[in-house]
Every structure is written in C-alpha cells, then in structure tokens.
C-alpha cells in the first residue's frame, strides 16, 4: 500500500487480535494467587439496612475477606457536583440489586456460595417508583441524606426568544405527548475489574471501562490513595455504548480487597448483574408544542421532559441539559423554551447510553415534525428542508455549527429510498419514514470545569523507526486505535500498520478524558495530529540538513523523505529518525488539545457546545401486519456527515451499529420494572435484535471537511442512532395511518392503537 492512508479501507491495526481470540479482556486475565469476588445484592427497592450478618460467610473455608459499605464509605460519582454513590450500600438500599456486601474467596463458586450465606435485615421503606411518584411531595426521599433532600436531581429551564408570543402568532400549533422507554446497553462483555498490589506498594487495576482517567480519580479518592500510586489499565473491552462510563463497584471493591488482602482480586459481573449495573436510557415523559407558519417555518418550540433517573446520579446532571439543548439543531427556530428534570427513583440508575439524553427529545421532535407536515399538508422532507440551518451558523441557543452536511444527507436518503416516487404510493401496510438529527463531537467543556487539556497524546520514534502513539483514550471496538494510527501515519508518510498504539494506561499514557460524548476523534485525534506534526518537523529538519535542502522542499511518503519531484534524492524514514535523534537527543513530541472556545450569546449554557456537530438523515421502510400488529423494518437508508471518513469501513460500521441499536429501541427493547424489580434481566427476555430482526442498512457517507476536526473528521459513533426510532414511527404512520408516541412499537401497542382508531372512527 502506498500514499496517504486517509480514506483507505482494509484491516484495522488491532483487528487480528479480535478475530483470533487473542484479545485479552478482564475475565481472561489471570494472576498467581488471584482471588474472586461476588456481591450480595439488595432484595428491597428502598429500605434501611438494620443489620448485615457476614459471620457464616466469613467462617467458610476458602473465604478470604468480606467487605461492607462502612469499609469504604466515601461517596463517588462521575460528575463531581453529584457524588451520591458508595462502593457498597451504606445505611440504606435504593434499588433491587444494589450491592451491599462483597465476598472474596479462593474461587468464584465459593465466593458466590459464601455470598448466599450473608444475612441482611432490612427495614423496608415505601419505594419511589416512576415519574409521578418522584414528583409527589408526599413520597419518601430517595436521598434523604442530601443537604437539600429532594427527588429532583436537577431541574433545568432555558428560554430563547418570546415563545408565548411566537406561539400566539403561529398559524398552526401542534401539541403532543411522548413517552420514551428505558433501555440498556447490553454489551456482550460483562463489567469486570482485576486489582493487584504492586511490588512498590501501589496498586494496578485492570478494568472494563470507557475512561481510565475518571476511574483513576474516583478510585484513588474513595480509597484515600495518592493518585500516583494507582495505575488503571483498560485491557480489551467488549464494548460499552456508554454503559462503562461510570466508576463501578467492581473497581472499588476489587481495589479495596486487593489492598486489604495483599493479593490479586478479580470481580466480573454475571449477566444479570450487568442489567442491574445499568446506567441505561432514561425513561422520559415529554410534551411538545410547536408553532408554525402556514408555509412551514417553525416559529416556536415549547418542550418539557421529565426523566426517571433511578437511584443514583450517574451523569444525570448532564442528561438534564442534553434533553433540551440539541433541539434547535439543525433547525432554525423563532423561539425556544425547554424545561427538563432528572428525577430519583428506586430502580437501577440510568446514565449515558449511546446518544445520551438526545435520543428521547429527537424522537419527540422528528415525530412532531411529521405531525406538523400532515397538518400543513406538506411533504415531511420539504418541511424539514425549509427550516435547515446551514454551515457556519448558530442555533437559537447559541451552539456554533461549523460544517453542516444535513441537506446533502437528506438528499442522499431521499434519493436512495425513492422517497419522492414511493412515499404514499406503497401498498397498504408498507410505509416510508424520515428523520434527521445532529450530535456533538465531544463537549467543549470537560466535566471538571478546568482549563486543562481534554486529550494529551505522545508520539515517540525509536532509532529503529518504530513509531508508538500513547493515548489515554479507550478503544472499545469503535476503532480509535486505527483513527490515531491513521492520523499519525498520514503526517509521517507511513501506513497505520507501521504505527503501534499504547492506550488507556494511566501510568504509560497521558491523560485523556475517555471515550464518551463522541469526543475521541475530535480531541485525541487533534492532539495526535499536533504531536505527529511536531515529530514530522523533527525528522524533516534532520533530513533537510542531510540532503542539503530546505525542509519545505521535502515530502514524506511511503516510508521515505525525499525531495519534491525527485524520489531518488532522499533518505528512509528510519534514517531520518536516526539523524533527528543525533541532532536532538531524542525524537518525539507530546501535545494536548483543548477545543477552541466559541463566542456565544448565551454564556451560561455550558452544556451542549461542541467543537463540531455531525449530521444524519435516515429513511426507514416498514411493513406492518394489521392483523398481528407485527412491524417489520424492511430496510434503512442512512446518510451521515462525519466530516471526513478517516477509515470508511470503520465509519460505516459505526453508522450501521447505531441504526441497529436504534432498531432495537424502536421495536423490542424496554427495561420494565414490576414493584421495582427488573422484570427480565436476561438476553432472552430483553430482546437485543438478532440477525433476523436486522434489515439491510444502506450507508452513505457525506464528507464536509470540518475546519476544527482532525483532517476534517467529526463523530460517527452516536449521532446516527438519533433518528432511527422516529424514522420507524413515521414509517408506521405512512404504512397504516397511526401515530405511536411510545416506543417500542410492539405488536401489542400497534394493535391497541389500531383498536383505539377503530373505536374512534
């Protein structure tokens, strides 16, 4: 292979390990004298802990240690302003399945049997279940220990322009309520952690996480360790989708018990425990009023969203903003107001699932636009197009848009799906639905609110020509190692296969805030580019001196540095690296990236701004059986503006994965609790789509070359999921004329809606 690797397909550098079974996940790591941990979990949704009797468990031969909440009582949480969780429950339990005791034994089976011998006495309290109970002032308080006890974690209200005046002046006002269900990530790899004491008195923690940096900070803080004594390493991770962003009991308890016992401790969750660890989609009740002119200009949106957050905060403060801040993208709104609440209840905590906080309002918005188009007798695509913001624009709430390919995306899917000739003309039971969406490429402001870099990346070149990239970002399968290797290879005239990436090891890699909010390509990618450019200058200068020419006259390509226009006059990259080392003492560079701050009219809106936004349009075709209520998605056409596809196969895989996860939420997936108990904590009952439920997904990539993204690239791992559920909802309406405002669109719900229409009509 020759030339720049940017835009080339082919294997990813870490692909081989993943297809040969050689990749090592936490559960595959074994150390001498390794002990195993298991949890005792709450059987009550809300109760005071009266007594925990661990004597029988502790007395069992082979049990090495037993830990309770009081052993590690310092509170932690991903968001510093909302630390409300402890490694194990202290004084109170707040959901069925909350860990109370951790038992460590010589093998896993013994740890589990000993855990079954622990006796917990509860003083049951009334459980707060559902949004109405959380809002009821007579309900008990989930966090009654808080300084200002309330079942509302965060209540956000923002208004831009005069919404009431705009609504009053609108030709039509469309109003509806939407109920989005909870759902969970269901990564195939369970969360796990292995902690081992270091010979020097420190501790190493291998963990299945999306962000070693936050785990590092929280575990050190809760254990009272100096951060410098703790090393957190991410081995191969069996995906996250947002579900491995929080610190977990696995990490805290393995770390504490390894230190206490002086031997390695591994704790891996069971499948049922993965469902209980959760941090999934918030069930959200939403109300939308939209005012439009008769020509279809959106004069105002008035939006409310109440989210059932479960027992702990997780990233819920951020969720409450994300429920509202992306509404005006990519649309021009005359006025906008939103109010969002994230509530505490006695079920497993919700958190960031792919498309965090933006999935639910996007479902409401894109379904609502179809309603409006119907009222106005407009084509839903035309209604959207006339309200599109362009490139170099700003939303009503002050979010700066740089590149914007939404119009091209919509054109692509309309054309691919035959929208203009087929929609409304398909046989009864068949329909097409459209949705568009936008998503951030990382948050402009980090959660710690400091002015430090969001990503730092080092590039080192050895005298044998080996190039190693060190980044704290986490590859969960999404391809961030390949992204880093591609960018660095491009700058150094090499191929990704020439580059080694060392990632997510707090002792070896510089700080990166981690793999969430679709931030890694933007942040770590830009840092890698800067570091690679510094290295490029080092080798170019050395080669220029050797060749007796100016560095500006030289080109790096195919592993050589040569004079522009004359390949024969040059040196190999390896030789140039040696010349540079002789001149400079060492070859390498470290660079940090912090996104450029953007002027905004609305300074207080610190959650929502991103360096760049991705845009997506998708059309779903469905077939609905009106006798059985079964909805089958026939095909999805999706176009995504990823700025630039650094490796198109990887980008397409992200887009396809997003749509597939969206189809699961559209048709099957829902976390259902009965009296606070998760009804179906298994992969059989919680229906992740199989190959049989996944239709062809046809992907078009739109490249807009973003001015801030590294070599023009933006996110692709979350945004494409946003429009899938409303596209299906709109297609169902096109097929059989019913509006479904509460996913998943199960046969029961379809039949109920058909029944209701039959009675009405």
């Amino acid at each position, binding site marked *: 292979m020759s030339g720049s690797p940017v835009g080339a397909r082919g294997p990813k550098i870490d692909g081989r390990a993943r297809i040969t079974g050689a990749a090592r996940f936490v559960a595959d790591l*074994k150390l001498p004298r390794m002990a195993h941990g298991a949890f005792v979990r709450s059987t009550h949704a809300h109760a005071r802990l009266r007594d925990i009797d661990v004597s029988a468990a502790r007395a069992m031969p082979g049990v090495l240690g037993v830990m309770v909440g009081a052993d590690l009582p310092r509170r932690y949480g991903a968001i510093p302003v909302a630390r409300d969780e402890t490694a194990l429950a202290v004084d109170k339990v707040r959901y069925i399945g909350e860990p109370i005791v951790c038992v460590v034994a010589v093998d896993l089976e013994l740890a589990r049997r000993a855990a079954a011998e622990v006796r917990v006495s509860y003083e049951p309290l009334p459980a707060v279940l559902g949004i109405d109970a959380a809002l009821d002032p007579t309900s008990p308080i989930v966090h009654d220990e808080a300084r200002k006890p309330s079942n509302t974690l965060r209540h956000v209200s923002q208004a831009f322009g005069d919404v009431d005046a705009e609504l009053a002046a609108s030709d039509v006002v469309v109003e509806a309520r939407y109920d989005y269900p909870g759902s969970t990530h269901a990564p195939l790899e369970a969360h796990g952690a292995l902690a081992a004491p270091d010979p020097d008195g420190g501790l190493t923690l291998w963990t299945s996480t999306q962000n070693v940096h936050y785990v590092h900070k929280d575990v050190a803080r809760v254990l009272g360790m100096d951060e410098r004594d703790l090393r957190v390493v991410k081995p191969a991770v069996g995906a996250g989708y947002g579900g491995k962003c929080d610190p977990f009991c696995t990490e805290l308890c393995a770390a504490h018990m390894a230190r206490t016992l002086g031997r390695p401790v591994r704790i891996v969750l069971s499948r049922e425990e993965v469902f209980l660890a959760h941090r999934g989609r918030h069930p959200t009740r939403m109300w939308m009023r939209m005012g439009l002119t008769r020509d279809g200009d959106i004069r105002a949106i008035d939006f409310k969203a109440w989210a059932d957050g479960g027992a702990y905060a997780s990233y819920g403060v951020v969720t409450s903003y994300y429920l509202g801040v992306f509404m005006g993208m990519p649309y021009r709104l005359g006025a906008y107001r939103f109010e969002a609440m994230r509530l505490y209840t006695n079920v497993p905590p919700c958190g960031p699932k792919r498309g965090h906080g933006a999935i639910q309002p996007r479902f409401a918005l894109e379904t609502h636009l179809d309603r409006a188009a119907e009222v106005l007798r407009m084509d839903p695509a035309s209604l959207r197009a006339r309200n599109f913001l362009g490139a170099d624009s700003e939303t009503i709430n002050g979010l700066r848009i740089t590149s914007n390919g939404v119009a091209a995306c919509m054109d692509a899917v309309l054309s691919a799906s035959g929208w203009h000739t087929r929609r409304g003309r398909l046989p009864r039971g068949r329909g097409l639905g459209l949705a568009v969406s936008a998503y951030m490429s990382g948050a402009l402001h980090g959660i710690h609110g400091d002015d430090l870099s969001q990503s730092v990346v080092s590039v080192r070149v050895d005298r044998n020509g080996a190039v190693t990239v060190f980044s704290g970002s986490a590859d969960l399968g999404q391809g961030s190692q390949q992204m880093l290797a591609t960018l660095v290879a491009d700058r150094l005239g090499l191929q990704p296969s020439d580059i080694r990436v060392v990632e997510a090891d707090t002792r070896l890699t510089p700080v990166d805030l981690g793999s969430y909010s679709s931030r890694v390509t933007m942040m770590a990618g830009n840092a890698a580019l800067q570091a690679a450019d510094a290295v490029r200058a080092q080798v170019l200068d050395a080669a220029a001196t050797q060749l007796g020419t100016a560095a500006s006259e030289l080109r790096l390509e195919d592993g050589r540095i040569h004079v522009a226009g004359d390949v024969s006059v040059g040196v190999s990259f390896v030789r140039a690296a040696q010349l540079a080392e002789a001149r400079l003492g060492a070859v390498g560079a470290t660079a940090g990236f912090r996104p450029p701050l953007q002027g905004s009219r609305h300074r207080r809106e610190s959650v929502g701004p991103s360096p760049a936004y991705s845009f997506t349009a998708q059309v779903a075709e469905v077939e609905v059986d009106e006798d059985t209520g079964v909805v089958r998605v026939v095909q999805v056409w999706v176009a995504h503006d990823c700025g630039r596809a650094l490796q198109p196969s990887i980008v397409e895989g992200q887009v396809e*994965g997003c749509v597939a996860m969206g189809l699961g939420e559209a048709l099957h997936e829902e976390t259902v609790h009965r009296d606070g108990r998760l009804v179906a904590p298994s992969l059989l009952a919680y229906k992740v789509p*199989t190959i049989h439920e996944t239709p062809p997904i046809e992907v078009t990539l739109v490249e807009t070359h973003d001015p801030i993204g590294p070599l023009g690239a933006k996110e692709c791992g979350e945004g494409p999921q946003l429009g899938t559920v409303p596209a299906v909802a709109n297609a169902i309406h096109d097929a059989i004329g019913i509006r479904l405002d509460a996913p998943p669109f199960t046969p029961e719900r379809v039949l109920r809606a058909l029944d209701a229409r039959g009675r009405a009509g």
Partner: protein
Amino acid sequence: MDDVVPVLLRVNGDDVRLHVPPTRTLLDVVREDLDLCGTKHGCDVGECGACTVLLDGTPRLSCLTLVGTVEGREVCTIEGIATPAGLHPIQEAFDRRVAAQCGYCTPGIVLTLVALRARMPDASPGHIRDALGSNLCRCTGWGAILRAAEDVFAPCRGGTA
C-alpha cells in the same frame, strides 16, 4: 462437591486428559483448565452464542455443555482455526472487512461460519443468516459480518446462486 472423573477430549488436535467433575461446563474447562480464553462468557445460559465451540465440527454452546457428556469428542475453539501458515479464510475476510468491532462475539461467530463453510461451502445468503441466528452481536448491525461472509461463500456458488 461433585466427584472428579477422568475425561478424555481432543481439543484443537491435541489429546487432553482431564480430571474434573463431570458437571463442569465445557466453557469453564476450556477457559480455566486449558487457558483457551478466546471462548467467551456472555450470558452462561445459552442466549448469546459468545461461547460457541465446534464439537465434532458442529457449533455447540459450550456454556450449556457438561464436560462429562462430551467424553472422547473433538472440540475446536477459536484458537484452533488459524494455522501457523495464516488465518482461516473466514478470519481473513473478517479482518479485511473490519467485521469485528469489540470482538467479544467474534470467536463464536467465526466458528459458526467456519462450520457452515465446511458443511456447505456454497451457502446462500439465507443459509448464512440462518446459521448466525444463534449468535448475538451488539456492535456491528451485521453488515460487515455479512459482507465478510459473502467474500468467502459467494465465489463458491457458481452461476446458480
């Protein structure tokens, strides 16, 4: 505690003599006793297919297979697919098409397709989908996996497919 019994298996071409409780799962035995960790725990109850191995060439959920019931049989895990000469054609296609994202389901899916290819080298797209119905993949949406499978199966279909 279960009694320990001798069990003879042939694993990836090697004879393996074990002394294990017959009720241990094949999954535990290959991972913990034989250190063949490419076979994955996904759910432990036969729902996800991550633990798929080949038993006498046929895909089998190792988490539901008690080791005492497979005495004398031939077990192939993901570690037994590639040879020193190179990857299996299914693996080569997976690599080229980036059909593994996180890679946790991949060993099971690769083995499912390896078995299908041995049995039916010209399997149709429908056969391929049917074969993969017992494996879950949460990352890919199946597109790249099907493209990789097509790379291998389509050339064998002749002109009739």
